[in-house]
């Protein structure tokens, strides 16, 4: 029983990483109409930038600064590479971010090395909070809190700020938003940056839990796709929920049948696609 709880809890933490990734991907999928294959690359970049920044400005500084650094690089990529492709066949933007993903992985490997790096977290976060449930460490609680704050901030931004209102309106009808005088190119850049910001944050949190490897992006991005498909395209809450569901499901499967812990994610996706093709909370008719 304790082992099951341990694995399920582990899965929940990984599910938070999936959810943060999926939220960013979902934002970009909505307003930029791009599947950002490079999302995993930006996530790894966030983790590695934090790794480099920690000795200079400390853990807390890096936690704040590294996601913004990743987002700044995201804006560059959006302005220089993705933007010329808006309005063209969606195939091209897919291929572009695909190429960018390969380059980011290779650059990460060239700069920081192919070997995995340990990511040091403050000592007080390392201790278990409970003697019985030894796996409930401070860091895991920290991951949950930070993710909750980030998600709450995101939803508040979308709900209450002018930027958020523009993003939501743009998802509904971009042409009308443009005709009302909003600079949609700027809006799309901001939206892209917001997505990358979340990816960078996920990168740092994942680094503290799983360590840093150049391929961490490539291995975390596919479950994030699954999270979006399970939760339903067009729904941010769906993406959040999808990430947590598949994370916990993978964790529970680890307890009983470790070999199937990855496959089960895709089985859940297949079942959802057959029973409810638009996903749990997805908009009907989107992408059909």
């Amino acid at each position, binding site marked *: 029983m304790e082992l099951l709880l341990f694995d399920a809890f582990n899965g929940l933490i990984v599910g938070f990483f999936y959810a943060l990734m999926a939220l960013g991907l979902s934002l970009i999928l909505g307003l930029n109409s791009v599947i950002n294959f490079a999302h995993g690359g930006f996530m790894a970049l966030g983790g590695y930038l934090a790794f480099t920044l920690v000795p200079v400005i400390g853990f807390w500084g890096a936690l704040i600064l590294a996601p913004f650094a990743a987002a700044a690089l995201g804006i560059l990529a959006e302005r220089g590479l993705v933007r010329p492709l808006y309005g063209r066949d969606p195939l091209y933007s897919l*291929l*572009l971010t695909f*190429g960018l993903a390969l*380059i980011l992985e290779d650059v990460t490997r*060239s700069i920081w090395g192919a070997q995995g790096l340990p990511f040091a977290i403050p000592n007080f976060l390392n201790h278990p909070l409970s003697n019985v449930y030894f796996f409930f460490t401070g860091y895991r609680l920290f991951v949950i809190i930070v993710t909750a704050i980030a998600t709450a901030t995101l939803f508040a931004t979308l709900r209450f700020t002018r930027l958020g209102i523009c993003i939501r309106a743009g998802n509904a009808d971009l042409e009308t938003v443009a005709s009302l005088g909003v600079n949609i190119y700027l809006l799309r850049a901001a939206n892209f940056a917001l997505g990358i910001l979340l990816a960078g944050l996920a990168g740092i949190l994942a680094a503290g839990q799983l360590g840093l490897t150049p391929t961490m992006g490539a291995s975390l991005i596919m479950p994030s796709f699954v999270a979006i498909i399970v939760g339903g395209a067009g729904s941010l809450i769906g993406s959040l929920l999808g990430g947590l569901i598949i994370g916990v499901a993978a964790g529970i499967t680890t307890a009983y049948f470790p070999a199937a812990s990855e496959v089960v994610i895709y089985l859940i996706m297949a079942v959802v696609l057959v029973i409810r093709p638009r996903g749990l909370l997805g908009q009907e008719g989107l*992408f059909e």
Partner: protein
Amino acid sequence: MSVEAAETRERIRAGSNLASRGGERLGFAVFAAILLLAPFWLPLVGSYTDLGTRVLIYALAAMGLNLLLGFTGGLSFGHAAYFGLGAYGTGLMLRYAGPNMWLAVAVGVLLGGFAATLVGPVVMRRRGIYFAMITIAIGQMFYFIAVRWNNFTGGEDGLTGFQREPLTFPGGSIVLNGPRFYYFVLFFFAIGVFVLWWVLNSPLGRAMVGARENSRRLEFLGVPVERLTWISFAISGFVTALAGSMSALLNNFTSPLDLYWQLSGYFVIICVLGGMRNFWGPFVGAAIYVVMQDYASSLTKNWLSVIGLMFMLVVLFFPRGLLGVLARRRSG
């Protein structure tokens, strides 16, 4: 729209109705001769036969994908799955069921092809980028099965312990070494290409192109667009699985990377690089890709950056692909 459709129709005819015009018949004869004589001229230009075999394999995989991608308009980013299943099917048969080459190839093709046929109904309703996301995610499922089913598939290290066996006929057998294996692959390549050519020149193929150009109009005409996408997905899966089966025999080895999503992306860029609106486009793309990989991997360790850069350059400056540009120049 209608101008573009007419132009596309023209390009398809130019690409596929090979026997209809004198010039193109000549072109096809030259092309066939180049392929048939490859084991003789490849060493003369400082290359080797296996490189030619690899071009055929990648070309067949990409041409299979292109039936769906370029001619039906389905953005599949998951075709490595069917390629890899073809490879594993063949490898597993040779390892566990004995040295029958014909049977091994057949099992590989059927495994990959039926997997695609099963996946088809799940994705056929979707269009555009969501189609891409679902196909790539489903493809990953097969990757993890291969990685985790350790004692059967060899897990992360790949499947070893099998090799190309002599090809048995009722009257004897042939050992498939060097150029003979090239001709073995060329034989299956020809079969796969003929199937694709035949489909594209049938009313079914015309309807697929129609589904790409204007699926709504086709629906109003009573054509079942979803079923067309499914059929295209299935045929394309069978052909790509055939290529995967050949790949297992070439390397005497299959790796889980044969199923990995990055390979799916490589297949797509091969189609775009050569020109995905053109029947032979993926062949040209495969030739460029394989030769480039061969040279680049001897020069630099940063192969990923090289191919990543190629993705970007093709997309930003060369989206019609090589044959697309040539066809356009000739017609205008």
